[in-house]
């Protein structure tokens, strides 16, 4: 789960990490008022969307009067921002953060992530702040410093001093150590997966400030992070994906024409690959999970069919913990209750497969049955392509 920058900064402040003074607003009038209240000569308006790459896309602008700030906010609010990370459709801006501009002496990069290779939390830091860290990693690997945290003892002072020295903050080790240990505590307490401050800055007054902040949290730990769950913004997520989650389904929209309903994340990916192998393109990833009831299957059909690009649906079930007869009942129910005007290809295997096939056979419905994965993928791609050629 991701949150907005202004929310991340609020959490940082709770852990006594300094951020610029500012406030989130939903109207241009409020933007101007906030600038006035904050005082100073220059302010920054930052579009609050989850995707990165806002700066280059015009989502971060500076103004030097409250009137100008209101003007900028007016342009941003309600507009659609297309960044390198939003995809071509972009993301609508419904709130902006207005902050007092900082006087920057130096910029740095600092993040904490759960690193899957070392299976530890790792601190990543660089003196090259404010730029894309992936680019730094490619062009100048030596500019990136990492420190692995032993969960038995936590982040240690000497490690913080090492990082400080490595990125040229050797003269400010005490305040840097304080900053990074507070960030580590937040990361651990709130079950973060990633906490990135890019850039964090040293101001002309020698203060260390988190100028930007990005956080993502472990979905598996949300059950014990009630306060974090409150920060979720459904407008930033695909409505089909939100609905799917509500039904216990794992759905991700893609841009092809073969709708997929599969059990198990691995097989769901494998099914997409088999479709691609036969020259087709999957319209989605969908894992119905274990213990899929007929209702769950019916919901899966409903969600997949909301995508207007779907030209055929492939149901691929290898039942272990699942039961083919329940799946088949769900397929039959969905095909009867919903207006499905695309061909449905069904491949069943595993627990209770004979019973499942019998239910499909006896339904009298025009379902295309497939013998195995290869057959299913081939038939689904063929059906989708045949529909594609029919003029609307």
């Amino acid at each position, binding site marked *: 789960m991701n949150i907005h920058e202004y929310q991340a900064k609020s959490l940082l402040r709770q852990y006594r990490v300094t951020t610029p003074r500012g406030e989130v607003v939903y109207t241009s009038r409020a933007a101007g008022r906030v600038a006035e209240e904050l005082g100073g000569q220059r302010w920054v308006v930052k579009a609050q969307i989850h995707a990165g790459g806002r700066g280059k896309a015009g989502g971060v602008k500076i103004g030097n009067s409250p009137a100008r700030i209101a003007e900028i906010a007016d342009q941003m609010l309600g507009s659609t921002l297309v960044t390198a990370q939003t995809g071509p459709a972009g993301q609508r801006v419904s709130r902006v953060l207005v902050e007092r501009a900082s006087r920057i002496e130096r910029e740095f990069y600092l993040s904490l992530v759960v690193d899957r290779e070392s*299976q530890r939390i790792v601190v990543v830091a660089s003196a090259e702040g404010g730029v894309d860290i992936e680019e730094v990693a490619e062009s100048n690997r030596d500019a990136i410093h990492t420190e692995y945290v032993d969960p038995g003892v936590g982040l240690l002072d000497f490690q913080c001093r090492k990082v400080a020295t490595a990125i040229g903050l050797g003269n400010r080790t005490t305040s840097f150590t304080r900053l990074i240990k507070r960030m580590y505590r937040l990361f651990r307490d709130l079950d973060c997966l990633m906490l990135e401050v890019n850039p964090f800055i040293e101001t002309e007054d020698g203060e260390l400030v988190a100028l930007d902040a990005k956080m993502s949290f472990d979905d*598996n730990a949300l059950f014990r992070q009630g306060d974090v769950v409150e920060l979720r913004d459904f407008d930033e997520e695909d409505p089909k994906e939100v609905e799917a989650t509500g039904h216990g389904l794992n759905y991700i929209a893609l841009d092809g024409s073969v709708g997929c309903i599969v059990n198990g994340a691995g097989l769901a*990916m494998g099914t997409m690959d088999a479709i*691609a192998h036969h020259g087709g393109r999957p319209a989605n990833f969908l894992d119905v999970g274990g213990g899929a009831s007929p209702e769950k299957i019916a919901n899966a059909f409903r969600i997949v069919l909301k995508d207007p690009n779907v030209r055929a649906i492939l149901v691929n079930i290898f039942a272990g913990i699942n039961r083919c007869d329940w799946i088949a009942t769900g397929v039959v129910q969905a095909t009867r209750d919903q207006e499905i005007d695309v061909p449905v290809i069904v491949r069943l295997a595993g627990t209770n497969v004979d019973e499942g096939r019998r239910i499909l056979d006896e339904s009298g419905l025009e379902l295309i049955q497939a013998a195995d994965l290869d057959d299913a993928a081939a038939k689904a791609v063929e059906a989708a392509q045949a529909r594609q050629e029919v003029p609307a």
Partner: protein
Amino acid sequence: MSVFVDRDSKVIIQGFTGQHATFHAEEAMNTGTQIVGGVTPGKGGTTHLGLPVFNSVAEAVEETGADVSGIFVPPQVATDSLLEAVDAGVGVAVIIADGVPVQDMVRTKRYLAGRSTQIIGPNSPGIITPGECKVGIMPSHIYSKGRVGVVSRSGTLNYEAVSQMTALGLGQSTCVGIGGDPVNGTDFKTVLQAFEGDDETDVIVMIGEIGGQQEVEAASWASQYMTKPLVAFIAGVSAPRGRRMGHAGAVIAGESDTATAKLDAIEALGHRVVRNPADIGDTVLRTVKEAGDGAGTGAS
């Protein structure tokens, strides 16, 4: 021999009296697994499926001599049960739950340092040595005894691959589901090492997916030290970047994390790769035949 579990394994089930645990324990017993008891705190002293229930793993191990534990508890409490099993000294602990917080596993791995328990999972279908021992949720009837070792992250892809093999008459020595989480108990390389040392395994199939470099590291180890042929499939060639594909660990972070990059890297290391998941069985069959010809022994 097989790896990690066999007919001599004495298995206990944690969360024994739960619905899923009951169903799968019964199925495992029907296919030859030696289940000797279970643990459900508060229900110690009762019996379930005709077997003793204990309040703690330590007690269960003490009384039954169990050396393997199958952990069937919800993800929120899974690492606690896991550490209890480790503390009680079981040799292998299999953790099925999907949804374990990743920082719980980071701490768990630290606790494991210097201890010898082999952790399989979490987010795993389990482990099966066909006809001898099953600790997990896989449908036993698709597995058959043989000489191909299978290791996968995903459960359903494991079933898919195994059913293709079984249909072609290729049985399995042991099938290990290491689980789909980013921080897991046993990595691919550890399982390959076990298969390399197992005299009942001739060919090894590794089924990975997008995210991380575990598969490539394992393949790299294999090309240096393994004498047995390795066949690899990586799921997610068609997966988009930056999106988590169901499994917590399945997200493409950088170029080297993509399925294609991993398949290319593994192929460059001299191993056979499968690019269409429907071709896993055929590819293994070809590999088994070649290995048989080369060694002059033939695969059983």
